[in-house]
């Protein structure tokens, strides 16, 4: 299996109080990888490390099979990046901005840029300073897609955009991905948006990777189990216990690595299940964060 992004023991101390610690990322080639985490988790810092904008204090980074920072020119030629706060010269027109961007990338596809310009209904002769926020969001996606990159790194690409623009931007991204074997690394705190799009998720909190798994495993493997009677105390469980809470009606467990047949384990251990509840990505995300924080505390 080859990876578009791989880090080992990545470490970066941003301040006295915040650091990226022991970060091991493995983003498969061809994946649409959702890099999730609350605000301040270190998502943008990690992305800046991956693309050589910050120098790590330890660990190794490989992007598109090449080493960072040694091979950055080759990597950046094949990687499309939309930063959290992208910069474009406001006095350029849309078409000028496209030509300007094109000059930096040998792989830039002007015909495709034209097609996207039409699809996004962007005004080609308008100055950027007069574009709406939504139009700017579309323009950034246009520029990065027309590069025809092997890897797209998108830092909160739809943050602050209205739902219609978000849809348009995501649709264009997906149309691109279905025709190219590109890898997409997309950071967001908007969990719902990524739920239907991503096939892998990584969850970052307080500079640490809390979980990394295929979306299917995330959605099917994490359950909230309401118990009528808790099983006898034991450390031997066929699943991973993420958290347990004692409530009025009985205990509630959140488990990871769940399979339906594990119901039998509960009765075997003298427990009684009232309900096995599916968690969506957002619920699962919140539960994993809570558990990671209580372990860390």
């Amino acid at each position, binding site marked *: 299996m080859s990876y578009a992004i791989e880090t080992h023991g990545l470490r970066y101390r941003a301040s006295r109080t915040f650091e990226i610690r022991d970060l091991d990322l493995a983003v498969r080639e061809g994946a*649409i990888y959702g890099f999730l985490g609350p605000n301040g988790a270190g998502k943008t810092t990690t992305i800046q490390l991956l693309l050589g904008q910050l120098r790590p204090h330890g660990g190794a980074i490989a992007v598109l099979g090449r080493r960072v920072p040694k091979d950055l020119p080759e990597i950046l030629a094949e990687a499309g990046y939309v930063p959290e706060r992208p910069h474009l010269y406001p006095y350029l027109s849309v078409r000028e901005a496209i030509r300007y961007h094109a000059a930096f990338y040998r792989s830039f596809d002007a015909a495709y840029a034209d097609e996207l310009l039409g*699809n*996004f*209904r962007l005004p080609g002769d308008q100055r950027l300073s007069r574009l709406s926020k939504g139009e700017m969001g579309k323009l950034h996606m246009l520029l990065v897609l027309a590069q025809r990159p092997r890897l797209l790194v998108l830092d909160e690409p739809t943050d602050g955009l209205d739902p219609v623009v978000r*849809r*348009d931007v*995501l*649709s*264009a991204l*997906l*149309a691109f*991905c*279905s*025709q190219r074997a590109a890898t997409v690394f997309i950071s967001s705190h908007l969990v*719902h948006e990524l*739920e*239907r*799009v*991503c*096939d892998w998720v990584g969850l970052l909190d307080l500079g640490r990777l809390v979980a990394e798994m295929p979306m*299917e495993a995330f*959605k*099917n493997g994490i359950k909230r189990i309401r118990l009528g009677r808790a099983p006898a105390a034991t450390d031997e469980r066929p699943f991973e216990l993420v958290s347990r809470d004692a409530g009025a009606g009985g205990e509630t467990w959140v488990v990871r690595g769940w399979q339906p047949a594990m119901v039998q384990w509960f009765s075997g251990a003298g427990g009684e299940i009232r309900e096995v509840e*599916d968690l*969506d*990505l957002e619920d699962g995300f919140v539960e994993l964060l809570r558990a990671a924080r209580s372990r860390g505390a």
Partner: protein
Amino acid sequence: MLLYRYNNTLRHSHGGQMFRHIDPRSPTPLYAQIANRLRVAVATGELAPGASLPSVRQLAAEVRVNPATVVQAYRELERDGIVDSRQGAGTFVRELAEPKRAAERQREAVRLVRSLLAEASALGLTADDLGQAWKRESGGGGR
């Protein structure tokens, strides 16, 4: 309403409508939801024999799902003999015998009834309550 057109050969302008019930939060995987919706469309005649399914690119963009999800849905339909995939040409609805279509419709009906029963039972409604409502709504409702 179509979000926007990627090219003018898009025949399935109802694609967005057709899949508006796709729910990423459901425990049923997205690919299975898409496959199921298409299966029903074939069974009810909404998609006629020979009709072409949208390309992976079109459907992924319209429904906003991972292209691999669409590929998986199409593969399942092909395996079940509902569609034919022709290299380079696209994916087409096969001519299904009426008994098979009836069986598919029945399958979907059972699924609907099951989810109705589950919801009713969670709310504490009895079969009697449902039966009365059924009679009233399907009888003189006029809708």
